[in-house]
C-alpha cells in the first residue's frame, strides 16, 4: 500500500482541546495515542534509538545513571519528532515522581526474535505488609520534577502543546504491592492499601497540579488499569471507598488550571463509569478493545457527557491487514465522528508488535475522512 506522509503539517491543540471538551462537532477528527513504543516512534520519525534503550530506562530508579538520563532525553526527542511526523496536536512527556517502584521482570519473547519485554510482577512488591510500608522511603512533594515538561515544551512546534502523563495511584498500588498481594490486602487490610493510596495521591496531586499549571501543558493524560476483560479487578464498592475520592482530588488539581483530564483505563470498567464521570469529573476516557466492549458502544452510552478516545483494537493492528484496519477505522469514524467528542487512535497503545503499515492505515483512513468531511 502507499503510505501518504506526512499526515498533517498543521498542529492545532486548541481544536483538539475543543473536541475533547465537546465544545465543537466541527472540523477534523484529531488523532490520539497514550504511548507508542520506541520502535514505532523511530519508524515514523526517522530517528534512532538503541535497541536495548527502553530496557535500560524501564527500571529507572530514584537515582538514575547518566546513561539513563541521556536515554530519557533521547526518548523525549523521539516523542516530539513522532508527534510532529504523525500529526498529533501534542507531544507526550512524563513529569518525574520519584517513588521507588518494584522492578519490572524482563523476559525474551521468541515470537519477536528474542525481543525483551518488561512485565509487572504480579506476586511480589516492595510493600507486602504494614512493616514494609512503615520502612518505605516516600519522596517529598518537592521532589516532583517538571524537567521533562520544560524540556518538551521547548521542542514542540507552534500550535502543539505538551500532554503530561501521570501514573495512576491504583496502578502504582499494584506495582508496589504486587497484584495478588494487593487484591488480598484489599479485603484483609484495606487500611494499609488506603495509607499507600494516600501517599501516592498526594504525589499525584502535586504532579498533576504543577503540570496543569505549566503554560505549555495542554492536558493531563492519567493512566490507571482498573479492570480485566470481563470486570473491575476490585469491587465497585471498594473502588468507591478507597480510590474514587482520591481520583477526584487528582482531577480537581488538573481542572483548577482549566486543563482537560483524560483517563486511560484498560479493562471492563463500566460498573465505575458513573462515578468516574459524575464524581471524579473525567473529561474523556481512553482504551477500548473489541473483545471487551467496542468503542462505538461506549460512545453511544457516554458521549453526551465525556469524549471518547481511540478504539482501534490492538490485536487488529498487530495481526490484521491494512485493508481491515482501514475498514474498521472507517466504521468507528462513521459511528463516533459525526456527533463530535471523539478522537481516533488505537485501543490501547501502538506497541512494537503492531504492524507499521496497519498503524499508517489507521492514520490514512482518518485523514481521508477528515478531507471528505471537514
Amino acid at each position, binding site marked *: 500500500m502507499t503510505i501518504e506522509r506526512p499526515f498533517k503539517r498543521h498542529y492545532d491543540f486548541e481544536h483538539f482541546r475543543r473536541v475533547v471538551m465537546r465544545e465543537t462537532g466541527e472540523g477534523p477528527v484529531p488523532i490520539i495515542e497514550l504511548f507508542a513504543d520506541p520502535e514505532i516512534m523511530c519508524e515514523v520519525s526517522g530517528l534512532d534509538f538503541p535497541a536495548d534503550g527502553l530496557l535500560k530506562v524501564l527500571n529507572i530508579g530514584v537515582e538514575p545513571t547518566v546513561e539513563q538520563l541521556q536515554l530519557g532525553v533521547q526518548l523525549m526527542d523521539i516523542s516530539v519528532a513522532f508527534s510532529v511526523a504523525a500529526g498529533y496536536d501534542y507531544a507526550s512527556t512524563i513529569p518525574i515522581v520519584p517513588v521507588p517502584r518494584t522492578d519490572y*521482570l524482563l*523476559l*525474551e*519473547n*521468541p*515470537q*519477536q526474535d528474542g525481543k525483551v*519485554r518488561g*512485565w509487572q510482577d*504480579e506476586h511480589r512488591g516492595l510493600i507486602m505488609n504494614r512493616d514494609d510500608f512503615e520502612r518505605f522511603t516516600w519522596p517529598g512533594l518537592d521532589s516532583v520534577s517538571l524537567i521533562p515538561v520544560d524540556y518538551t515544551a521547548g521542542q514542540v512546534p507552534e500550535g502543539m502543546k505538551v500532554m503530561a502523563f501521570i501514573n495512576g495511584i491504583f496502578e502504582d498500588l499494584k506495582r508496589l504491592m504486587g*497484584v*495478588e498481594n494487593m*487484591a*488480598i490486602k*484489599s*479485603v*484483609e487490610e484495606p487500611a494499609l492499601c488506603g495509607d499507600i493510596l494516600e501517599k501516592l495521591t498526594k504525589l499525584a496531586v502535586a504532579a498533576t497540579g504543577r503540570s496543569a499549571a505549566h503554560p505549555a501543558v495542554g492536558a493531563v493524560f492519567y493512566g490507571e488499569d482498573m479492570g*480485566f*476483560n*470481563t*470486570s*473491575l*479487578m*476490585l*469491587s465497585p464498592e*471498594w473502588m468507591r471507598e478507597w480510590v474514587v475520592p482520591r481520583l477526584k482530588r487528582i482531577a480537581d488539581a488538573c481542572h483548577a488550571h482549566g486543563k482537560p483530564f483524560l483517563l486511560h483505563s484498560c479493562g471492563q470498567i463500566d*460498573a465505575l463509569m458513573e462515578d468516574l464521570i459524575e464524581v471524579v469529573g473525567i473529561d474523556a476516557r481512553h482504551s477500548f478493545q473489541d*473483545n471487551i466492549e467496542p468503542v462505538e458502544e461506549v460512545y453511544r452510552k457516554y458521549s453526551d457527557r465525556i469524549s471518547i478516545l481511540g478504539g482501534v483494537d*490492538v*490485536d487488529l493492528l*498487530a*495481526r490484521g491487514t491494512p485493508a481491515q484496519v482501514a475498514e474498521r477505522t472507517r466504521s468507528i469514524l462513521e459511528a463516533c465522528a459525526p456527533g463530535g467528542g471523539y478522537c481516533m487512535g488505537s485501543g490501547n497503545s501502538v*506497541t512494537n*508488535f503492531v504492524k507499521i503499515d496497519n498503524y499508517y492505515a489507521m492514520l490514512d483512513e482518518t485523514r481521508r475522512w477528515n478531507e471528505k468531511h471537514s
Partner: protein
Amino acid sequence: MEQLAELVKEGKAEEAAGRVRELLDGGASADALMKEAMIPAMEEVGDLFQQGKVYLPEMLIAARAMQGCMDVIKPAMATGGPGFLGKVVIGTVRGDIHDIGKNLVGMTLEGAGFEVIDLGVDVSPERFTEAVREHSPQVLGISALLTTTMLAMKDTIDALREAGLRDGVKVMIGGAAVRGEFAGEIGADFFGPDSTSARDFAREAISR
C-alpha cells in the same frame, strides 16, 4: 458441612482447615468433604465471579481457603486416583509471564475437583508436550496475555500434533488478547473468556 462451605466461600483459610480436621476426626470421608462442601463452595464463588458479583480478592481468598483444606485432606486421597474428577495441565506460553488468569483457572479447576498440574510461566512447547506425555491429562490449558505472545499457543499445539499427542487431549486457551476465532485458527478446542467457562469446558471434556 454447611459451616465448612461457608468458611471456604468467605475465604477463612485457617478456620476452614480446622473444620476439615474436625469433620475428618468425626468420621467424614475426604470424598464427602470435597463433594458436599468444598467443591460446591468454590463452584458458587466461581459462578459469582463469572456473573460479576464477586471480584479478584474474593476469588483469591476462597481459593486459598480451598487450598488449605486440600492440604489437610490430600493425604487421604491417592494422587490421580479416586477423588479427582480428572486431570488438567495448565501453563503460560513461552515469552509470557503473566499468570493471574492462569492461576485463577487453576484454582477454579481445583475447586471443582480436578487435579491440576501447573507448569508455571514462560513454558516452551516442548515442556507442554513433555507434560502431556508424562501426565496424560484430559485437558491442556494454555494462557497468554498479549497478541504477540499468544502466537506461541499455535507452536504448542503444533508440537503436540508432531508428538502424536494432540488427539488424546482437549486444548483450551485463554488470556486478555485471545478471542474465540483465534482458537479455531490455531486448532484449539475451546476459548474461555474466564476461569468459570474453563472449568465448565474441562468438565464437559471429561464426560465425553
